[in-house]
């Protein structure tokens, strides 16, 4: 366990020591801040209009008009940035030879993957944590639904953790960080778009494929409905990706 913790800690520190880490952190905070400012401003205009229009006043809902769309936008932002967070995790180690240090140590490939994953998820958590002051602002000016916000954060965190797991796998597949970034982003985009499969493939096949999509399992959670099937989906999804990454590391040991 000490080894996993040591690898996770080093991974987290490496992100904070790298320009790409700061670029992700600042970029995420800045763009999500802009989203939040635009949405808040739009919501303020709608609230002002509602004073003169009783029909609009009935449909005004902070959760529906501000909190849910904000978390949905944050999710898309994470989809774009998660591969950038993970692209160097294995690729850089392999390129600069530091991977030998881990391979020669008395630890398993599973421990290496677990440590690297925990460190990357830690960094992603720090990214998401940057939005807390923004959401906290809502408590100052209104009375938001805490359950909805908690579910929004849980959904964003679970989705981010799933994105990181995919990124970790693509990073293990190539020594080149750019290749890892592009394949990671491509894989996440495909997993996102699978939710539209029902429109193209009729019947059970389409439903089955759509259910593999991350998006299909995030909608309900974003609305504040916590289903165990969605949580199980994310845990299974992450488990499959980490298992595949571990197998890839084992393959590197045997094919190298």
């Amino acid at each position, binding site marked *: 366990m*000490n*080894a996993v*913790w*040591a*690898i996770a800690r*080093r991974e987290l*520190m*490496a992100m904070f*020591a*790298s320009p790409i880490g700061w670029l992700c952190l600042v970029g995420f905070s800045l763009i999500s801040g802009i989203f939040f400012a635009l949405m808040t401003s739009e919501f303020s205009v709608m609230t002002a209009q509602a004073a003169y229009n009783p029909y609009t006043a009935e449909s005004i809902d902070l959760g529906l008009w501000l909190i849910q769309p904000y978390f949905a936008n944050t999710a898309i932002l994470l989809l774009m940035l998660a591969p950038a967070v993970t692209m160097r995790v294995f690729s850089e180690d392999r390129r*600069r*030879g*530091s*991977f*030998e*240090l*881990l*391979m*020669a*140590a*008395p*630890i*398993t490939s599973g421990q290496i993957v677990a440590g690297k994953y925990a460190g990357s998820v830690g960094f992603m958590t720090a990214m998401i944590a940057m939005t807390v002051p923004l959401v906290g602002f809502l408590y100052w000016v209104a009375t938001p639904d805490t359950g909805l916000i908690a579910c929004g954060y849980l959904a964003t965190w679970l989705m981010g953790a799933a994105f990181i797991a995919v990124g970790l796998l693509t990073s293990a597949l190539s020594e080149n960080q750019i290749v890892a970034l592009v394949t990671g982003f491509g894989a996440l985009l495909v997993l996102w778009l699978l939710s539209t499969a029902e429109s193209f493939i009729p019947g059970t096949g389409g439903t089955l494929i759509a259910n593999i999509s991350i998006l299909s399992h995030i909608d309900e959670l974003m609305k504040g409905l916590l289903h165990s099937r969605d949580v199980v989906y994310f845990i299974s999804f992450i488990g499959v990706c980490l298992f595949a990454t571990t197998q890839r590391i084992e393959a590197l*040991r*045997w*094919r*190298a």
Partner: protein
Amino acid sequence: MIHVQHLTKSYGDVRAIGDIGFAVDAGEVVGLLGPNGAGKTTTMRILCGCIGASSGTVTINGIDLNENPTAAKAHIGYLPERPPLYDEMSVGDFVAFSAAIQGVANVEESVANALQQVGLDGELGGTPIRDRIIARLSKGYRQRVGLAAALVHNPSILILDEPTSGLDPAQRKELRTLLASLAREGRRTVMVSTHILGEIEAVCDRVIVINNGALVAQDTIENLRPDASIVRLRVAQEAAALGEELEAIDGVASARAEADGWWTVSMNRDCRTEIAACAASHGLLELRRMDGLEDIYLRLIQETA
């Protein structure tokens, strides 16, 4: 100790090493020799568990590396040719990280010991070396940091792949002295590969020579010397009769003048004193015994090419 049997490694159709077998006893310092591409690094990486062998067995202190890799690897300290360092970390943090992944219980004490063993416990430019960022260190210091990381868990076996590669002569000498003391004081089993044969001769008890992925020889340098030794000499004066005079010495098998002005003398017993006395009368300038490690190595490689 290290015990290797029928070790083979193939990359697709290309065989990097084939059916290698050797043993290194506890406390022994062994040099692994071979030209570039001979399979030295592949052999060392297999011994450290970095890569798997296609077939064969490796036993580390009685533990099968295939069956129980984590237990076997705990006995090994490995320094690859390019030290596996995290440039953004400080020296102390990196060695502590290495200790943590090696499962060391008392990290702080082990780090201090390892840094002291490799001479990184002092200061550099007014800053303690352990606080310096690795990216800003010279190649010699980086090599030492890699060595400290390999030593931090006090392994009984040390495997070093070209540890002096890229170092200047002064750094090489320092590192050679360090390796010799690490082997002696720690009573460690050390396996070292290098292209600098003088280092092997100075440090190692025994050599293992591989070429084209096959084991060519394994013995002490003394035992690898041919029975009939060769000396080369150069004299100041033109001496047509020198050949006959040398061949008249009991123990000299043949003497011939080379195009480069040197004489090559084959002996069937050690009669260098008589040869020197004979050549001295013609103004002896230089006399070299041609069965140093370099000559042995070149002969073995040529024989198996």
